[in-house]
């Protein structure tokens, strides 16, 4: 399918159908699963996957605006997490470590030039991506999600990382291999564009 004809992925906060059935594990269990996964236990790693896949996928989806690419990058991030489990020392929460690794995976992919750069058409058909597992349904949220997908790539990445994921400019600059000033400027740009888009 031609990239230009592919729909842009718009997360739909109005739907709460979880297609991936998570098997919840407690935070205390996470530590045990991490230890077992570090020893090579696939089942333990699957438990970690089940717990965190929706967060990682949401991040990848917003950063790429492409469902298939987000799925692939989510898989890449978990494979990398498996490969690097040995380096996780528990200084930060496992979720924080995994999240950052996912951001790096998306960014490195982009840097490698594999990501298609064609702008893709925005359509009204969001059914393919109605996977939010949080029961929030507001027109504002849907409009905002849609507007975020129309942002230029770098502005979108900074907006998502800063405003949704809560990273500081210093962290974003490090992850995106740019300067704090550029990160701030891109956030400024994203906000200006979003304000205009939401006014329409």
């Amino acid at each position, binding site marked *: 399918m031609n990239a230009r004809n592919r729909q842009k992925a718009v*997360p739909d*906060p109005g739907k709460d*159908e979880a*297609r*991936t059935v998570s098997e919840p594990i407690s935070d205390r269990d996470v530590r045990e699963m991490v230890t077992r*996964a*570090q*020893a090579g236990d*696939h089942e333990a790693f*699957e438990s970690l*996957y*089940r717990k965190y*896949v929706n*967060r990682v*996928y*949401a991040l990848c*989806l917003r950063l790429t605006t492409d*469902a298939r690419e987000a*799925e692939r990058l*989510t*898989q890449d991030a*978990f*494979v990398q997490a*498996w*490969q*690097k*489990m*040995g*380096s996780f020392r528990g200084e930060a929460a496992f979720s924080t470590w995994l999240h950052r690794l996912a951001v790096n995976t998306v960014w490195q992919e982009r840097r490698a030039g594999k990501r298609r750069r064609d702008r893709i058409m925005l359509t009204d058909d969001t059914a*393919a*991506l109605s*996977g*939010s*597992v*949080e029961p*929030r349904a507001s027109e*504002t*949220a849907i409009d*905002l*999600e849609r507007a975020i997908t129309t942002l*230029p790539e*770098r502005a979108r990445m900074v*907006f998502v990382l800063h*405003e*949704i*994921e809560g990273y500081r400019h210093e962290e974003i600059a490090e992850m995106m*291999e*740019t*300067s704090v*000033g*550029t990160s*701030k*400027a891109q*956030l*400024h*740009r994203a*906000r*200006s564009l979003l*304000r205009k888009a*939401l006014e329409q």
Partner: protein
Amino acid sequence: MTCSQCRKLLHETGGIDLDPAARAALEEHLTGCEECRRQAEEIAALTRAAAELPHQIAPQRDLWPGIRARLDGVGTGEPEFRTWHFPRLTRPLAVAASLLAILVGTLSLLNLPGTGYAGLERFSGERTIGLITTTAMEKQYVGATEELIYAVAEVRGALPETTLAVIDENLELVDQAIIASRTAVQKYPADIGLQAMLAAAWEQKIALLQQTARLTGLY
């Protein structure tokens, strides 16, 4: 507080976690400026809406089988390390930046027109790179570029998207060159040549921003 200072503060902080003096200055300005007040409200609303977006979205299919298939034969003990490398375009970029630095430095010494950005004047005279610390030098570059970045951000909408894309690509390359040079300087702090490279990359960033400002008719 000017409108420009107010908007810079709003965009950087969202008006949150300000020290008492900054908060008082901001509130005083907002009380008397309808346009800044409107912008402050819009930014706050946007920030609230973004924070309320769901943090979990389920993929359309179970991704585990694909992951599981890739785990076999892959160990979990691989230590994480970061290999710093110069991006492939850094070498030509660095050469160009060095030439630019020499040119700018020469113009500055000769006091010729062409480097009229006020921010540059702040650190002209301190350009004997080897005599100043990298940190102090970079602080001034950061300040100078931030002023330009914010000035340009206000008016960049006047430029076509294609031009903006090229500008962003170039700025990103220069940022990469700055990071690579800084890493090298941190490793070999006594190396004057590396310090010069770092300064040259910053100079190129300023030149790019100045050119962008000219394109938007800012000055």
